[in-house]
Structure formats: C-alpha cells, structure tokens
C-alpha cells in the first residue's frame, strides 16, 4: 500500500522539478521588474510546439531541441522587453507597472489563438524514443523520460542560481530587484538588464518545454494550465526567490500526484488552487520570506 504513495511521491518530485524550472523565470522577472508575465504558460506552449515540430519533422531528439527552443525564446523575450515592455515600465516608474500585466494578458490571447489557428485545438502527443521507457527500482516504476527531464531541470535551475549568486550580471540583477534606482546610481543599465532577465525567463521556459515533450500532450490550452501552475509556485516560493521556486515546484508536484492517489486528479488540482488562495491572502510574500524586506 505504501508503495503507491511512495510512487506518487517520487512522481510528484520528478514532475515538480520541471514545474520549478518553468516557474523560476517568472519569479525572477517578478522580483527584478515587478511584473507578472500573464503569457508565461502560453510561451511554454509555443516552445512545446516548436520542440514538437523539430522532433516530428526533423527527427531530433527531444532533449536536443532544448538548444533551439531556449535560444528562440530567449531572443523573443529579449526583444519583447526591449521594444514593448521597457517603454511601459519607464512610463510607470512611480508605481506598479500594471500596464505590463495588461499587455501580457493581451499577448497570452495572441499566442493562444495564433497556435489554435495554425495547429487547431487538437491534442497532440509525440512518440519519442523515451516515451514509455521505465526504470525499475524494487517495486517502484520510474519513468525514464521524467527522470531525465528532472535531472536536466535541476541542473538548469542550479545554473541559474549560481549565475545569480556569483556572476557580475547576476549580482546586478539581484541588486536591481532590491532597489532599482540605486542600481542605476551604481552604473547599472537597468533597461538592458530587464531585457536579460526577461530573455532568461523565457529561455528557461524554452528548456522546460522541451523537457515536457516526451511525457506531456500538446494542445493550445496547455498554456493556461501552466500559467496558473507558475503563478502558484511564484507566490508559494516568494518573488525573485530561486530556491523558493524550486521548493514551491516540488510541493505542487507532490500535491498533484499524491493528491491524485488520495482523492482524485481534479481534487488534487483544486487543492493546489485552494493552497494558492490561502497563501495569497495570508502569506503573500511566500512560505519562506516571513520577514518583510529590510530597509537599507
């Protein structure tokens, strides 16, 4: 009996790791620029379609498509920030950039319907050489592609963390997240940094989209599903917090899987939303950031 739960736990962790990688870029942007990209899940959907095309028509290994999707989405994000969002941010220096929120809401509609028009609303799945392969560990069945995806996800998230902690630009990003004006006084070109942050955020989404291909079905509405999951994870983990996003992702993955065993899949999903609202209303700074930002 316990094996079922252990199985669910492992599945949840493996899934959650990928969720985390999807959400961590969103968290980063929220921290650095104060914006939530409403179209976050839709860009993931676009990445999935790109990866799908590469696998289906070019016969590529899904994991190799990471390089394509990450690059394409990085450029897309960088340009979007440069030509669309930076102007909006500049306009609303004194207060919260809600216009970016609205603009990304529009973007989500554009991307979703664009893909619907091109690919139709059908659900597609890809049969890759990884699909269905498993590893057995005693009584446990571990899906091979999920395990590989998880490992790659961890590596990528870890790389992001190191980048933020140790590199010059990473440090500049963190400084900008904490005080934008003073960052400028330090000689940091925040507009360029915003482009970097948004580009990175979408690049991570690009990586994740490739990671999902072997195990997930592709359809235009999948974007909304992952947008919501990402929102939950960002709020759980606290904005701008990479470690928080990782743990948040794992939590959501685990709740989904274990919840599906305990109750059913829909209720498990419901549970994540209820958790979301509770955290939003009572602990909006996240599970891990009890202290309010200290004043410098």
């Amino acid at each position, binding site marked *: 009996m316990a094996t079922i739960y252990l199985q669910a736990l492992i599945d949840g962790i493996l899934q959650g790791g990928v969720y985390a990688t999807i959400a961590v870029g969103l968290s980063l942007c929220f921290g650095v620029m104060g914006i939530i990209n409403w179209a976050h899940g839709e860009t993931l959907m676009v990445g999935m379609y790109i990866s799908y095309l590469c696998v289906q028509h070019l016969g590529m290994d899904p994991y190799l498509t990471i390089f394509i999707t990450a690059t394409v989405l990085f450029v897309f994000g960088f340009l979007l920030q440069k030509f669309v969002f930076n102007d909006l941010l500049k306009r609303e220096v004194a*207060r919260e950039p809600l216009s970016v929120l609205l603009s990304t809401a529009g973007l989500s509609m554009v991307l979703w319907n664009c893909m619907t028009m091109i690919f139709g609303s059908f659900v597609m799945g890809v049969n890759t050489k990884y699909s269905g392969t498993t590893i057995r560990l005693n009584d446990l069945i571990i899906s091979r592609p999920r395990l590989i995806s998880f490992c790659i996800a961890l590596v990528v998230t870890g790389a992001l963390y190191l980048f933020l902690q140790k590199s010059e630009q990473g440090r500049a990003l963190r400084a900008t997240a904490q005080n934008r004006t003073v960052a400028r006084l330090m000689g940091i070109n925040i507009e360029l940094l915003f482009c970097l942050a948004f580009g990175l955020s979408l690049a991570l989404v690009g990586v994740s989209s490739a990671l999902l291909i072997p195990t997930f079905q592709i359809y235009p509405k999948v974007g909304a599903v992952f947008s919501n999951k990402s929102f939950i994870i960002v709020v759980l983990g606290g904005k701008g917090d990479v470690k928080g996003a990782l743990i948040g992702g794992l939590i959501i993955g685990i709740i989904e899987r274990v919840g599906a065993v305990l109750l059913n899949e829909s209720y498990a999903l419901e549970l994540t939303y209820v958790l979301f609202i509770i955290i*939003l209303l009572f602990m909006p700074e996240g599970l891990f950031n009890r202290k309010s930002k200290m004043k410098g």
Partner: protein
Amino acid sequence: MKKLSKNNVWMLIAFAVAVILPNTTKSSSVLQIMVVTMMYAFFTTAWNISGGYAGQLGLGNGVYIGIGAYITGILFNELHVSPWFGLLAGGVFAAIISLGMGSFTFKLQGTYYSLATVALLAILRIFLNENRYIMGWDFGGPAGLKTKWLGVSFQNMQFMDKRIYYYIALGFLMISLLACWHTSRSKSGYYFRAIDTNQEAAASLGVNVMQYKLQAQFISALLMGMGGGFYVAFYQFIDTETMFNFELSFQTMLMAVIGGRATVFGPAVAACLLIPFNELLRRYFGTALPGLPMLLYGLILMATIQFMPQGVIPFISEKLERRKAGERARLPINGPEPGAETKGEANTDE
C-alpha cells in the same frame, strides 16, 4: 461647463438611438447581438468602477458574473425564486466575496489581486465540474445548468420577445453608467483618480485608500453579479466553461481599456463597437479561423496599452479636439499662427 452641454447632447442622441434601435429590425439574430452588446456594455462599465477608477485590475473579475449567474440559476430552478430577486442575491454574494479578497490583497501590489481572482475562477470551475449535486441541488456539473422554460412571464424573466431583454439590459446599463458617473464625480472619484496615479501620495494626503478601493470593489462586483443573473435569465444556460473561464474576464477588461478606463461612457462605447465586430468576424471567418476575434483583441489590447494608454476612444477624441483647435486657430482675423496652438498639453503619462 460648456463641455457638459455638448456631451449632454451626445448622450441624449445615444440614448434615443439605443431606445429605438431594437425596433428597427425583425431579425432574431440581430436582436440577439443587440442584447449581448448591451449586456457586455453593462459588464464592462461595472468592471470599470473598480478596474478603471480605483485602479484595481482584477483580471479574473468575470468570476463575479459567474457567481451571480449560478446563484440566480439555482435559486430559480430549485427554490423558484424570481430572477429579479435572484440576481440581487447573486450580486450581493459576489460583492461580499470580492470584499473578502480585496481586504486581503488591496494592501499589496495590484498583481496579487489579479492572481487571486484567477485562482478563484479555477477553484469554482473545478469545484462545480466535480460536484454536480451540492446540498441536493443540481448545479449541472460540467454539462452546465439549464433554467427551465416556464412560459412567458415577467416574474420569471422569461420572454419570447427579445426586445424586452434588450430593454432590461439597457436598464441595467443605465444603472451601471449612473454608478460609474457618481463614482467619477464624487469625492471618492477624485480620490480614486489620485489612487490610480500614486497610491503613496494619496495615502500621505490622509485619503483612506483601502476604504475607497473596497467601496468601488463592492459596487463593481455587485453590479457584475447582477449582470450574471441577467445572463442566466437570458441565455437560460450557463456552464463552467463560459462562466469561470478567462475569456469572459478578458473581454470585460479589454473593452474598458480600449474605451478608456476612468471615463464613464468609454467602456460602453467600446462594447458597442467590439461585440458587433466580433459577430461579423465570426460570421465570415468562423470556421476557417476560429481564434481570430480573440487574436485581434489581444493585438488591439497590446497596441492600445503601448500607444494609447488612456484608451482608444479618449485618444481619438483628443486628436479630434486638437484638430478643431488647430482649425479655429487658422481663422485669419487676429488668430495666432497655425501650429502655435495648445502646445505641451501632451497626454499625461500614466
């Protein structure tokens, strides 16, 4: 004061047109579009009270419409409550929930409120999908809720003649416009605009920001909930897909943004333009390009935010004003040189 009378003339004309319009056609489908247009005009004006004037962008505000709709529907089906009362109940219920969420999130960045409303959408959608019977009442589950047709009856808000629905919707729109107008004119309205431009400054002036935001939210959700009640009475069918789905919220928000947040009539005007446009698109491209209307809406929204942040309609009307001022300036007698007109009164950046 001069402006008031010019606008008054426009309003009277618009009202007259609105009243006469449904009598100009016998086509049921055209009447349908008219009713839907009025309904959306009402939804978006109600949204604007909170989203425009108080700057609380609830991207998932459509949830209040859904709540109102389901409550009205259930009360009608199970307890035989007239939709006239049902929609009031639905509105109040929605308003209370909005207060609940608002009181926790309004202190935070506006983004959090949007996330909260979207979370609520998901919670209700999944819950209603999973539980068809709640407390013994049939909520319809994923298949949706149908209200029984009991014959033409004013009490049951069931009519064969669509024109009656139209006039009811028009009535609701009037109420909504009135509420919006009152908000903009009153002290609260002044404070709202202050809140929208700089919350900290407003707070430092001693304005009780929270109170005004909650007030606006209450009215907005109340009206939207009531509108939901009308929706279910008119369509006689609702389901979780249409009610608790981002599209409805997106459309109400979109119309307000395009029409001009913080203007009273803008959102309604935008609705009158966009809904028929939507229908046209659907008729010509419906099967070939299914997502086209929404796609265009998304693009229009992004373009509006980028280039006409006050809204398309205020932008155009301002351009027309300037052109008129320029024309007046070109009068030869004692007039200043053309081009030397109002300078520097550029769009106040948000």
